[in-house]
């Protein structure tokens, strides 16, 4: 069972490396690219969280979640703009 899962993960990891051409590069380059991927992902996530969410909120007239929740001061506690 565990073996199967490991095999499955291994196989698809291999396929992933293949389609991104990371299969042919050196180990440190693979790590570097993955770090770049992660950084890009985080930047996008933060951008979506901080900018895109508020812009779309304003655009469509949704009230931010923090303003609706009772008993929570504005801009304190959960910060969901």
């Amino acid at each position, binding site marked *: 069972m565990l073996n199967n899962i490991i095999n499955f993960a291994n196989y698809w990891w291999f396929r992933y490396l293949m389609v991104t051409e990371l299969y042919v590069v050196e180990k440190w380059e693979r790590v*570097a690219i993955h770090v770049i991927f992660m950084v890009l992902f985080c930047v996008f996530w933060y951008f979506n969280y901080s900018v895109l969410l508020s812009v779309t909120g304003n655009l469509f007239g949704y009230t931010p979640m923090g303003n609706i929740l009772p008993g929570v001061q504005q801009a304190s506690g959960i910060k969901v703009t």
Partner: protein
Amino acid sequence: MGNVDDDSATFEQSYDCANNRNEKVSTPISNGHIPSHAFVQQKVEGQLSEPELVEEEQNEEQLLLNKHLKFSAPAYTEIRTRSGGLKFKGTSEGSYHPAKQLEANGHATKSGSKCEKFKPSQADGVLSAEQEHYQKTSFEDVPLHTACLTYLGFYLLMILGYINQLLFVPKVATEKGREGYVALYDAFESFYSRYVYRRVRDCWNRPICSVPGDELVLKDRVTDDYGWSFRFTGTETRCLNLGSYNYLGFAAATGACADDSEQRARQKGLAYCSPRSELGNTQLHIDLERLTARYCGVEDAIVFGMGFATNALNLPSLLGPNCLVVSDEKNHASIILGLRLSGATTRVFKHNSMRDLERVLRNGVCYGNPKNGGKPWNKIMILVEGIFSMEGSLVRLPEIIALKKKYKAYLYLDEAHSIGSMGPTGRGVVEYFGADPKDVDILMGTFTKSFGSAGGYIAGSKKLIDFLRTNSHAHCYASSISPPIVQQIYTSMSIIMGEDGTDTGRNKVQQLARNTRYFRRRLAQMGVITYGHEDSPVVPMLVYLFSKIGAVIRTLTTRHIAVVGAGFPATPIMEGRIRFCLSAAHTKEQLDYALDVIDDVSENLGLKYSRKPRDPKIIEY
């Protein structure tokens, strides 16, 4: 990519097995084994007792049995390279089993093909030429996601290359004391070969140490620094050869061709060290030219010592600055070089697109030479190849001949790959389409491929050839063909023409046509994308991604199949491909084995891109 952990017991076993059955195994070098000295001795002894050897060679069944034996396990046992994930089937599950298949299939067992209903490679002529072309040629589009991924991967490789170059000094020789000089070598090309090509360099230029017949022996090499340098392990791997342009199987160390060439080398030496127009002209060359002219069905022919130079050096003597050349976009580098040297104006038309060709021709005729104030061109020449070696497609000859006659242009047909391999008797695409050879003004071809030799020829009218004899640089300055090479061409050509009194040549051509159809249909059934015409023996299988080329070649090598990959500089970025070249020397068993492995590999590596409906029936050989 040798199998290093293989133990020698299996090898001994197979060899003992061969000995017990009193059969001569031609090269019992199994994968990854140091060639044993005992075997070399054995071979020498075998050579000494010649009458025995001759007897054995005459026994064809025995030979066939040998072929089965040497091809069976353990030389083709599976070697796992990766521990995780990949679920390759065992080779024993494939249909390659000597005992089962000795007489089962319709393969040419004794002397060529048995099957009567088989139609040789030839245009059907039922449909119009255009319809037939579209019916038989396939160029499937790339799936969108694969295209995106290919570009993404390529950019990643480039980014990594730049990072690499920034951080480390490349391990190559650098020139010193050249400050202030302009770089002598093109920057992008060296960058590309250092940081992209180098990563899969082990898949190209692999040294071999045997005749590249239906099988070949690869010298194993490993790299310790990611492709910057290689070292030989001293072991060898015997592989099924799907990479040589040995279409008719004349590249062999034994047989009539090899014997004749050897004899000729003993009689006449190895080279004349002089051009044809001086001291290098002999009766041999004249005979070869006459035979070539007869082979092509034209008045006269001229032969040269190098196929590439035949194009590159003869085009400049035929064309000048006030000439228009209409050239197919997939034409070979030698043609492109020749056109550049000639100084003629070159217009390119889309690959095999008759509409585009006609547009270019019409414009050329209507508007004339713009550099010369719109005066008419001296001559207009259409330049095409018979089989396009990277695409595996066939020229649309009947339509091109019609266009050529309509616009009064000349036609130069490069039959480098198609001569010998196409048509019912191997006379090239001209015979395949049933065209008249005299309709093609200049028939060019090489002896490198089907004839298993070296050199090239140009055939045509007596006038053309006489002109070339006085004007061609390749004729006047290049050294003439060496005697054993001429003999190899002469013998193989006579065999194809049936002048040796047997039908070996005809059988070879038929066997090739058969192998081609079978291989292409099986690949289509698997669902991989192949390009080209169904009768062309060059079969490019699209894998698109750069790393997949590497992965496929490496995996196939561990399964004892040697193939050739083609990547970016030779093809568009998006269309990395594996190119199979079929041969009449391949037997059905070998192809079946290869196809089973390819099926397995393409399943595991995700190469089955095709969205066409697949043929559910079993493909008959």
